[in-house]
């Protein structure tokens, strides 16, 4: 049955990650973490890791378990490890957050939460890298989108190692004075590897496959796309090796970040031309909501680059780095993720439910699983909230920021409700909903392949 091609636990990854997103947005709306607390405060670390690990990394892992086989036209290697990955990452994140709460004094306990988190999270990510890495390795030579993902996975390796190192340092288990002193300079590398390498680079790679597919645009490998990969990889290499080398030599890390910034900018400009190409050469004139909403995410990506440039030029990057990270997290990465989930969840649900009777019974279209006219305003509200909250952070208007966060949270909740309705086939007309031979998909788990 069609379930053979569906990754069984992908919906569970999506569900847990969406819960983390809503939790993080609620915390920001009620004034927990930055900007109410300092940017390096444990409260801020709680929110940042809830978003970076709980929401975006879990989502990316679940999505890649489904997409990497499609990208390389080979089955996923060791798919049974997907559930242990989910368990390790959820438990690891729980311990990490508990550890931060310990540091904040909210949680009084002698248990070594940070150490536990600092061990379980790298273990979970290592298993995810193993599954995906081996699947990619066996599919060489890799098509371009898969090469982006491969680079993203290497960054995840560096990211998880650094994260674990920090967790051990913060807990006091590694009494390395010098290393602890360098922590402040390694944190930007940790953030860049996470946001730029693992999340952005993998998302760009997947977008090279998804966008042409859903817009019916030509998806042959373009020279500009290859240069996006090359220049982006060069930026990440400059960070990964350059920063460590400069630290070892006792220099500042500005050269590496400068080189990475220029290479990253080249990648971004070329990516912009590719996006414009897909849009202009699409065969599908009428765009669906997921593609329209992705436009907000791409706007946020390029606005982030512009903001970063302005902040660096005006020497205010350190002061406003919170606003920049917020725009990247919520405008670009979360915006793209929510937009694509709006297509991916109905699509996978459709395959799971109607695949077995396809061609034999009348079935609804994938578009019939969602109500685009009703949901469009939620995406508009989401991006309006994100841009308003970013502006409020730049203007250091605390109350306005919380208001913007609340709007973002409400819009997210509405989109999540729509995803649940799509999964329950609630928008499908009764006559087409469950033809003989089909059954309602379970909310969090795809039906087993059965073969």
């Amino acid at each position, binding site marked *: *049955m*069609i379930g053979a091609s569906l990754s069984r636990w992908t919906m569970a990854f999506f569900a847990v990650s969406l819960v983390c997103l809503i939790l993080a947005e609620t915390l920001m709306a009620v004034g927990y973490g930055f900007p109410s607390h300092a940017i390096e405060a444990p409260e801020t670390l709680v929110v940042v890791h809830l978003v970076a690990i709980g929401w975006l990394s879990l989502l990316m892992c679940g999505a890649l378990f489904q997409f990497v086989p499609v990208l390389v036209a080979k089955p996923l290697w060791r798919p049974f490890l997907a559930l242990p990955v989910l368990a390790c990452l959820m438990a690891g994140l729980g311990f990490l957050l508990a550890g931060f709460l310990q540091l904040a004094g909210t949680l009084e306990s002698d248990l070594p939460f940070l150490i536990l988190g600092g061990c379980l999270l790298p273990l979970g990510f290592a298993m995810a890298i193993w599954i995906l890495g081996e699947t990619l390795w066996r599919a060489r030579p890799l098509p371009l989108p898969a090469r982006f993902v491969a680079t993203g996975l290497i960054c995840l390796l560096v990211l998880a190692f650094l994260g674990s190192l920090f967790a051990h340092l913060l807990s006091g288990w590694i009494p390395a004075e010098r290393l602890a002193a360098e922590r402040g300079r390694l944190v930007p590398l940790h953030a860049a590897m996470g946001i730029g390498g693992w999340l952005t680079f993998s998302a760009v790679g997947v977008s090279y496959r998804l966008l042409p597919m859903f817009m019916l645009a030509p998806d042959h490998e373009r020279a500009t796309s290859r240069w996006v990969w090359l220049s982006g990889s060069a930026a990440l290499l400059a960070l990964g090796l350059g920063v460590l080398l400069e630290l070892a030599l006792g220099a500042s890390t500005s050269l590496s970040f400068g080189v990475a910034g220029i290479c990253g900018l080249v990648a971004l400009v070329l990516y912009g031309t590719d996006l414009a190409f897909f849009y202009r050469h699409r065969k599908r004139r009428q765009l669906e909501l997921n593609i329209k909403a992705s436009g907000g995410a791409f706007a946020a990506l390029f606005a982030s680059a512009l903001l970063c440039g302005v902040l660096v030029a005006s020497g205010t990057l350190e002061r406003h780095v919170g606003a920049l990270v917020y725009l990247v997290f919520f405008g670009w990465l979360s915006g793209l993720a929510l937009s694509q989930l709006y297509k991916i969840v109905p*699509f996978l649900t459709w395959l799971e439910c109607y695949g077995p009777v396809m*061609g*034999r019974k009348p*079935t609804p279209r994938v578009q019939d699983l969602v109500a685009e006219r009703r949901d469009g305003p939620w995406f508009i509200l989401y991006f309006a909230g994100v841009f308003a909250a970013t502006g409020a952070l730049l203007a250091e208007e605390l109350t306005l920021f919380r208001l913007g966060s609340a709007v973002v949270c409400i819009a997210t909740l509405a989109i999540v409700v729509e995803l649940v309705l799509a999964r329950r086939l609630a928008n499908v007309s009764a006559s087409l909903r469950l033809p003989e031979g089909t059954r309602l998909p379970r909310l969090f788990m795809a039906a087993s392949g059965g*073969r």
Partner: protein
Amino acid sequence: MNQPPYELDVRPILRDGGEPFSAIMQAVEALAPGQSLRLLATFKPLPLFQVLGARGFQPAAREIGGGDWEVLFMPVDAAPSSAEQHPAVPDSTQGDWPLPSIEIDCRDLMPPEPMVKTLEAVEAIAPGATLVALLPREPRFLFPEIETRGCLWRGEQQPDGSYRIVIRRGEGTGAA
């Protein structure tokens, strides 16, 4: 079969923006009994497969570089019954397949529509019959679905990135 194939190069006509169909049909009319037609074109002339198939010719196509194609249309009576005659179509089974009864073009449809249309067409043909579907890309989700329904397939990536699949509906229990 002893006669050499009649050779027709329609590439100059195509490059001038012309329509070679009448020239091809004239050539077919001029063929001696049992003689094959060797056609050279700037693309794989899929529509011709069906037209000449109806006249009892079996195609064997191969790309000859520069995007050009050579197709040998052999009279079915004279054609050797071997899958070697289909070098462009990877063989996933033994033996001969009947000529496709229909050809559907799903290249401009959004996923999963190409899969839906293809399976609808599979359900519509008789057991043992074959069909050709042109799809926007390699149909990863379609392959296991076809096999589960007891059908066989042969597929190949096209130079333009699309995918051509020949599906043979299962005998006996059929695809149902």
